């Protein structure tokens, strides 16, 4: 009965109800998108960091992984030290550099990773063999396309360029052993991976006779055994390996949070604004609707309909508008999130696997629950007015009017 009356009241002004539902739908879509933006980016990054099970990353002191060209000297000794720790399951040393494949018209430049193939966590092999032999490398599709190469080809690869002599330096012939998908690189970035020792030797001349000779890396990734104390191990490494910053996944998340806090805050602000807009829209509409029906409500009260019944009917009206709008907004929100994610995925330097708008059922339910709660709250004021209506006076005024 209450539901039928509430729906009848909404049907009486179809255009108005439709506009209100549309308004709530847009607000709900925006709210869902902003909830996804404020939580999804963080979750997406966490999933990426833990995708290969490495809980700790060791970067040169004062830097983030691959944030600068700084390197960590004495890499072999640090690897031995880390592998001797009881909780450590694997250590993956990584050196980052740029390699060039000379071509008739210039050169193809790619980001190169020197890795330990047995412990690497930077790529997934898609086809062919891993870069195990000293003269082997794996490459991603972007590199193969740019260099016009295929698996099995041998390429002349250089680590640097001498502008005085106009010649490439650190040259070496490498065989493309396999095709790989790199996990942490941005979309469209040509990349290769080769044995760490090979890359260290190729790039040694570029670093000159600096500290550490050619035994340097840019990063260590450390995988701990199940149940190991991540924070305890991190603190131990920080205390015993003074040239590195040991960063746990939680620490990396905190730094990413700081760098990308703008998007999280934007999400929170626009989400709150969407909620307020939806709330105001429903409150206004239901209040006007109740004002127009004062006589009708007075008659209902006069023939014995209880206050609770009137209140419930009005709350049902506002809940129906909110729910209809929220359901419509759910679909609209997912579509706009996909579009917005497409825009932000072009962000330079961010891994291609990062999603700014990650759909999580919990986020969707949070958005819907917030909107439903605000919808019911929006009906509270007009319901309170209707419940406190002076029946006799209202009937008299309606009769006079």
């Amino acid at each position: 009965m209450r539901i039928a009356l509430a729906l009848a009241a909404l049907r009486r002004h179809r255009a108005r109800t439709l506009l209100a539902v549309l308004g709530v739908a847009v607000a709900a879509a925006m709210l869902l998108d902003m909830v996804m933006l404020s939580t999804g980016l963080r979750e997406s990054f966490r999933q990426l960091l833990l995708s290969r099970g490495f809980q700790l990353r060791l970067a040169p002191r004062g830097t983030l992984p691959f944030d600068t060209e700084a390197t960590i000297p004495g890499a072999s000794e640090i690897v031995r030290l880390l592998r001797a720790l009881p909780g450590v399951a694997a250590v993956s040393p990584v050196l980052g550099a740029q390699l060039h494949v000379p071509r008739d018209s210039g050169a193809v430049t790619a980001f190169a990773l020197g890795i330990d193939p047995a412990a690497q966590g930077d790529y997934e092999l898609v086809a062919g063999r891993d870069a195990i032999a000293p003269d082997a490398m794996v490459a991603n599709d972007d590199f193969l396309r740019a260099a016009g190469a295929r698996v099995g080809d041998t390429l002349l690869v250089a680590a640097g360029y001498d502008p005085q002599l106009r010649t490439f330096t650190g040259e070496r012939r490498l065989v493309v052993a396999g095709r790989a998908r790199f996990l942490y690189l941005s979309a469209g970035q040509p990349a290769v991976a080769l044995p760490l020792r090979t890359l260290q030797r190729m790039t040694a001349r570029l670093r000159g006779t600096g500290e550490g000779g050619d035994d340097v890396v840019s990063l260590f990734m450390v995988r701990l055994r199940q149940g190991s104390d991540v924070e305890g191990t991190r603190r131990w490494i920080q205390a015993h390996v003074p040239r590195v910053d040991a960063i746990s996944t939680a620490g990396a998340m905190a730094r990413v949070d700081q760098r990308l806090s703008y998007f999280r805050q934007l999400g929170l602000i626009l989400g709150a604004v969407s909620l307020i807009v939806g709330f105001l829209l429903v409150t206004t509409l239901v209040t006007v609707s109740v004002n127009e029906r004062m006589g009708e409500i007075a008659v209902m009260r006069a023939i014995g309909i209880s206050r609770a019944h009137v209140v419930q009917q009005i709350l049902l009206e506002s809940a129906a508008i909110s729910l209809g709008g929220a359901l419509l907004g759910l679909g609209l929100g997912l579509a706009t999130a996909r579009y917005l994610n497409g825009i932000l995925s072009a962000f330079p330097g961010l891994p291609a696997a990062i999603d700014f708008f990650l759909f999580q059922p919990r986020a969707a339910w949070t958005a819907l629950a917030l909107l439903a709660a605000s919808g019911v709250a929006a009906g509270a004021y007009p319901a309170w007015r209707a419940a406190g209506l002076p029946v006799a006076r209202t009937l008299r005024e309606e009769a006079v009017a």
Partner: protein
Amino acid sequence: MLLLLLALQVRTIAIDQRLADDAGLRVGDRVVVSAAPGGAGDTVVVGAIVTRRADPSEIARNEYRVRLHLDQLQTLTRYGDRVDRFAVATRGAAGTTRALEEINDAAFGFHAYRSRDIAVETSATFKVVSRFHRAIGVITIVASAIFLLCILLLKVEERRRDVAALRLIGISRASVLRSVVLEAAFVSVLGSGVGVGIGWVMSAAVNAYYQAYYRTPLRFALVTGDIVLLAVALSLALGIGAGVLAALRLVRSAPLALLGR
């Protein structure tokens, strides 16, 4: 002071305000700079503390910046007689073109670019953010338009009895239509004015917050004349549109029907 430093052969460096604040450094302080943590370094004197320019590319990068003399940095980093880039000042646009051609014709292993072209290449981040803001802006405008349309329809429909009374005492449909549309326009302009005020306060709050958060003089939100004009024009157009729609519905109905009889 400078003569004394020269006499002592201690080089000076310039540091940015952020580093000075965090490390508690002042002009005249002696510090050791090295290429690697714990590595051998040079003792230098803080000769100047500089404020960074409002550079968007430095946002969210909590980096410190130190300026050294070129030869000192080359020695410290064992970089040899190398530099990463040269900046060349030219005399006018023609001079730039001529210098570009001459340098690129004679260059050994490097290439000259216009500053403008480099700025375009390095502004990819801001293009992405700008596209994202534009998309969010469109969604916000759609939401606002529906909200405005709804509110104005309700506002005009509230006038059913007034309109009926006006029609019954002989006021023409056109006059009623005009008065309703005028009222809608007035409400829209008034709302826009309040909105511009709220927007201005919000932008001031956003700037104050993010300038403190990122420690930059960069302005994050700008309320310009164009933006105000767009907001008011959009609001006025929507208001008038909604007013016309609602008023047409009213004036087409019989006055007695509007009174519910």
